């Protein structure tokens, strides 16, 4: 059996960050977006197969750092080409003993989004297809920075103005990893945000979203809240952003998993910059 380890979390987290940046509205023809990010994650506890929270034992903790790059290019008024890549490093202690740390490239993604409809240029309905490709080999490295297999994701996104200056992004999709045991996953999230001032220099937003995963593989990876095979988790985050110019913004995000089954529980933060040009 493949030995599956934590770092799918970072891929998923990065996708999440990317989504947060991009949301469902088009980047726009000729325009580009570029987002470097840094993410820290730590976990100790887990939810068992009945959804009971199980505290981690003494001396058990998982930590991870990830640096990611996300980019998008508007290839037409409706279509955008999106790509991401990340490098991760993990360290863990179980029962007071340190396990060998792991680092390397995680999953790369390449996606195409298409805006199906807009309402008065204020709300947008889009679809996106993404290929997820592991840039690591589970068998040879003995670890994983994700599920370790090729995946495909399709999702729909509805986003735009909520009320006044506030905005929202709702999305739902299906993700399939091409392994005999899957997993097959339903992914979903809802983001609501608003600028805090008239100049829109400061903004806050909150996300709630998660993954429901189905697989014959019932493995639980306690040290990784986002790597779930046959279970689910729901993650929440709060985000603050500051716009320096119309081409540069910085965001900080704090996140935690708030519910789950057969999944790990963790929390962390992310910092990312958005360059638009």
């Amino acid at each position, binding site marked *: 059996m493949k030995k599956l380890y934590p770092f799918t979390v970072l891929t998923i987290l990065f996708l999440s960050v990317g989504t947060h940046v991009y949301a469902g509205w088009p980047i*726009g023809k*000729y*325009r580009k977006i570029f987002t470097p990010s840094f993410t820290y994650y730590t976990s100790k506890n887990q939810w068992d197969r009945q959804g009971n929270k199980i505290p981690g034992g003494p001396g058990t903790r998982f930590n991870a750092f990830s640096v990611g790059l996300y980019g998008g290019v508007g290839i037409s008024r409706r279509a955008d080409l999106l790509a991401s890549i990340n490098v991760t490093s993990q360290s863990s202690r179980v029962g007071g003993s340190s396990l060998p740390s792991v680092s390397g490239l995680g999953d790369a993604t390449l996606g195409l989004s298409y805006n199906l409809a807009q309402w*008065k*240029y204020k709300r947008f309905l889009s679809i996106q297809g993404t290929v997820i490709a592991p840039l690591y080999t589970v068998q040879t490295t003995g670890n994983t920075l994700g599920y370790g297999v090729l995946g495909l994701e399709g999702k729909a996104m509805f986003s735009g103005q909520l009320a006044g200056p506030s905005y929202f992004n709702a999305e739902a999709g299906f993700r399939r990893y091409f392994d005999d045991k899957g997993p097959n996953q339903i992914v979903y999230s809802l983001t609501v945000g608003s600028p805090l001032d008239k*100049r829109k220099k400061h903004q806050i937003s909150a996300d709630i979203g998660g993954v429901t995963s189905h697989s014959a593989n019932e493995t639980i990876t306690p040290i990784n809240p986002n790597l779930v095979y046959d279970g689910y988790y729901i993650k929440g985050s709060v985000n603050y952003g500051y716009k*320096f*110019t*119309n081409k540069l913004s910085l965001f900080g995000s704090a996140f935690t998993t708030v519910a789950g089954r057969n999944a790990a529980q963790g929390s962390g933060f992310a910092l990312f910059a958005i360059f638009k040009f």
Partner: protein
Amino acid sequence: MFKIIILGCLLAFTGLCDVHAQESEDPKGEILIDTRPGNKSAIYSDHSSITYKLNVKSTYNVKQDGKLTYELLTDDWKKVYSSSRSVRLGKMGSGTYNIRIPHQTSGIYRVHFMFNLTYYDDTVKRVVAVSPEKIKTESFMPVDFSEFWSKSIDQLHKVAPNYKVTEDEKKSTRDVKVYKVEMRSYNNVPIRGWLTVPTEGKNWPVIYKLPGYNIAMQPETDKPDFAVFSLDVRGNGMSRDMVAPSSDRYNLTNIENRDLYIYHGVYMDCIRGLDFIMNQGQEYNLDTKHVCAYGGSQGATLAIVTAALDKRITACTFELPLYADMHDAYRIGTSYPKTTWPINRFQEYLKAHRTFTTQRFLSIWDYYDPQNFISRIKVPVLMGVGLLDEFCPPRCSFGMYNKLTTDQKEYIVAPDKAHEMNFDYFMFQLLWFKESLRAPN
């Protein structure tokens, strides 16, 4: 007793009179008519029927019968089709009527829906465009057109601009710096404008805004993604030192002389304003590689002329282009029951100056007609047209638009608007500005 009988008769008679008065009064109410074109923007193919759906609602407390007559007319009021159908509305009733008019050749058509009911008569007027991309208008370009404008630009370049830029601290905000810009233009006439530049960031793409007829420019402080230079051409707003005609005679100023006509200087003012952007732009964080000429009505003409005469413009957008195809505009304007502006001003002038003939007037305007400039534009173009516009006949706007040789051209129609565009258009135009000037969404 006799008095009582007389009084009774009088009362009875008065009562009868009241009854008769009430019977002769029409019932009160309204007929609400909602007209919806079969195609949302009221643009039809010359191969398809013109369709409308009319939702009619009565607030009368009585039944009404009558007739709905619908007519199709050309934009210069020649009837091409007429038909009718019966209408029956119950008390507070409503009805839906689907109208189908046979397909027509390319052009702009008026559609009139006339309701003649028991207690109600009204006409709803709409305009549709049929295959507007096929509308062709005749060109009357003078043989020395290019030479005339080439010489004019040479003359302009002989005038030292003497730019003077002063920050207006009262108008500047935390987000936008506002500068008053002064310079010398054609014939050494002083002109002025407002430059607004966002305070944070640099290398701002520029919207070069040109004025509508007698519309004084104001600093544009609500465009956080662009610098905006709004120019008051001569005789407009802040630029009335040497040329200051009254507003209703502005476009008549020296109209009998091709070289002295006010628009000769005005068009050159637009080039001089662009000179300022290009020569002084770097000092004010302007991205001189991305400059869009923009205007509405008269400003549309000025934007077209600027983009045509000067290749430094990288995009051009305009709505409701005034003066396009003056020959047809004159014919259409005078075809109305009452001649529409601005043609009525020209017509009045021609009547008062019998030696200045319509033919002579049009031959002078051939040097200033934006349709004679537009084929020179090689940059992306966006045009907005209000189908009910009486000042700028849509046929003339499309005839001019169809002379564009650039592939990157597009138009949007506001079917229910006259000399204005709707909210959706301006939302799209903002995205268009961002796309053509490469500003992030």
